[in-house]
């Protein structure tokens, strides 16, 4: 299989911060808002270089979403920054009415998604956000996998007209996608071709999928690995093409198995080419405190969980 090299561990939120800083220099219409989490979201560079285009909202996420919607009226492209939990569940109705239904060009940028937020525990570890956001008509939902891809995605969504949910995380993880790779919204990336099983992964689980595929290769199993950074619009064609070849699929995400990538895959395949599928995701549970590695293992989100799911789905072919 194709080998990927970790260029040095980094956090996806820093990719966001770097992308935002670049947008600050290249696009005068980009403005940023934050609800008292500037350091966590790595927004300092943008603020330092564009103080007049930054709005510190304070701990008031509902107000932030409304202000962001209003800033679009006058041609601004607002990027909101807070944790994924406070970017979605806390402000669902504000997003629904003032942003999605009103079709406002707001970029909701959400850090610390999933259990890898770690020690803060379940109050902050949202595992339902992809589901909530993908259910909103017109919302684009993106979950990039590493620093480079998060930076590229941040830059790309400024060019996209319409509301976007951009989800990323807290821990330093492998940075393995090419630094100059263009980010195409809604276009799945083939990472490694294979013939026995398709692994479609998003976010932090893409790297885990690559590790799992390597291990499977040693067992004589050829896994095709697809990085699906955009959950919506969903690149069904890429998945369909792959499962036509492999005949089974494993979906992998740092999210409840309900409502996330896995269900999007299942929904698409059930109407095109019903295919045996296993879901790697949390099993309708809240998280807890712990290190990211411990939590990934305990909640069945690491490469070993993916490998197990592959062995299971292969038997169902």
């Amino acid at each position, binding site marked *: 299989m194709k080998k990927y090299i970790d260029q040095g561990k980094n956090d996806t939120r820093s990719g966001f911060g770097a992308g935002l800083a670049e947008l600050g220099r290249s696009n005068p219409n980009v*403005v940023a808002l934050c609800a008292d989490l500037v350091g966590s979201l790595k927004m300092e560079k943008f603020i330092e270089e564009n103080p*007049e*285009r930054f*709005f510190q*909202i*304070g701990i*008031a996420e*509902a*107000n*932030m*979403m*409304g*202000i*962001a*919607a*209003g*800033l*679009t*009226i*006058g*041609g*601004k492209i*607002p990027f909101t920054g807070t944790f994924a939990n406070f970017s979605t569940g806390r402000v669902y*109705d*504000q997003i*629904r*009415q*003032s942003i999605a*239904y*009103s*079709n*406002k060009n707001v970029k909701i940028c959400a850090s610390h998604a999933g259990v890898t937020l770690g020690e803060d525990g379940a109050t902050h570890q949202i595992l339902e956000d992809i589901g909530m956001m993908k259910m909103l008509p017109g919302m684009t939902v993106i979950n990039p996998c590493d620093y480079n891809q998060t930076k590229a995605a941040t830059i790309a969504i400024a060019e996209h007209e319409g509301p976007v949910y951009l989800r990323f995380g807290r821990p330093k993880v492998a940075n393995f996608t090419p630094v100059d790779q263009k980010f195409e919204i809604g276009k799945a990336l083939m990472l490694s071709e294979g013939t026995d099983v398709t692994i479609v992964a998003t976010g932090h689980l893409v790297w885990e999928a690559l590790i799992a595929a390597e291990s499977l290769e040693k067992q004589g199993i050829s896994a095709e690995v697809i990085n699906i950074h955009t959950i919506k619009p969903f690149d069904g064609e890429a998945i369909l093409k792959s499962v036509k070849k492999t005949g089974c699929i494993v979906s992998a995400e740092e999210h409840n198995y309900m409502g996330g990538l896995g269900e999007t895959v299942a929904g698409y395949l059930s109407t095109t080419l019903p295919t045996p599928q296993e879901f790697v995701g949390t099993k309708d549970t809240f998280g807890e405190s712990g290190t990211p590695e411990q939590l990934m293992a305990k909640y069945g989100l690491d490469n070993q969980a993916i490998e197990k799911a592959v062995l299971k789905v292969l038997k169902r072919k």
Partner: protein
Amino acid sequence: MPKLQELQDLTVQVRRDILRMVHKVNSGHPGGSLGCTEFMVALYNELMELKEGFDMDGKDEDLFFLSNGHISPVFYSVLARKGYFPIEELNTFRLIDSRLQGHPTTHEGLPGVRIASGSLGQGMSVALGAAQAKKLNKDSKLVYTLHGDGELQEGQNWEAIMYAAGNKVDNLISTIDYNGQQIDGATEDVLPLGNLKEKFEAFGWDVVDIEEGNNIEAVIKGMKEAKSRTGKGKPVCVLLHTVMGNGVDFMMYTHAWHGKAPNDEQLENALSQNPETIGDY
């Protein structure tokens, strides 16, 4: 003020529009709409500086955001009669395939509407964003909003009220329809608002009271006073004392007509109190 008679005629006509719209579909919110008729007529025809036509960005013109979206009948009537869309379209209010949804929305592209509202408490935040975009764009025009008084029970308002003062958003005039009524009864019984003037002032706003919120001359005078206070480092709040259901005797001084349409007889009675002026749609 040579225009006064025209504005008064328009006010009566808008009241007729409201009553006929809600009667036709046997749904909608006449009470608050009637209470804000003088304000809305004055705002769009005397106070706001508006460009010809409509574009979403609204640069170099005043903007208005209706936060209490359920009083859509008065909003639609005033917009139509200002020329944003044909008055005949008022016939489609709340019907299938209409741009005149039960609550205002941008979704069907109705000219004059810049944000969806109906789920309460969100309009002031949106207006703050638009007001700050104006400042970034070096656009000296103003942003106006209208809110129900009961709507202030929504916490998001107070986030916005705190933010507006803290960030000196002084190109904003937020008006509260201070009628003391909400769906379940008097605000005093449902959840008392306390002293709104003192609350806004304590948050750092400049507050203007318009005691006769259903007297169009008083509305114009009060709003001009409010306008004169913009640009001085503070957001401006107008407490517009109104009577829900104003202009139709049996709808006044009660919350009963908040979200109820008149029947045929009641409509006839209500319209007889508001004879046709510039022509029904």
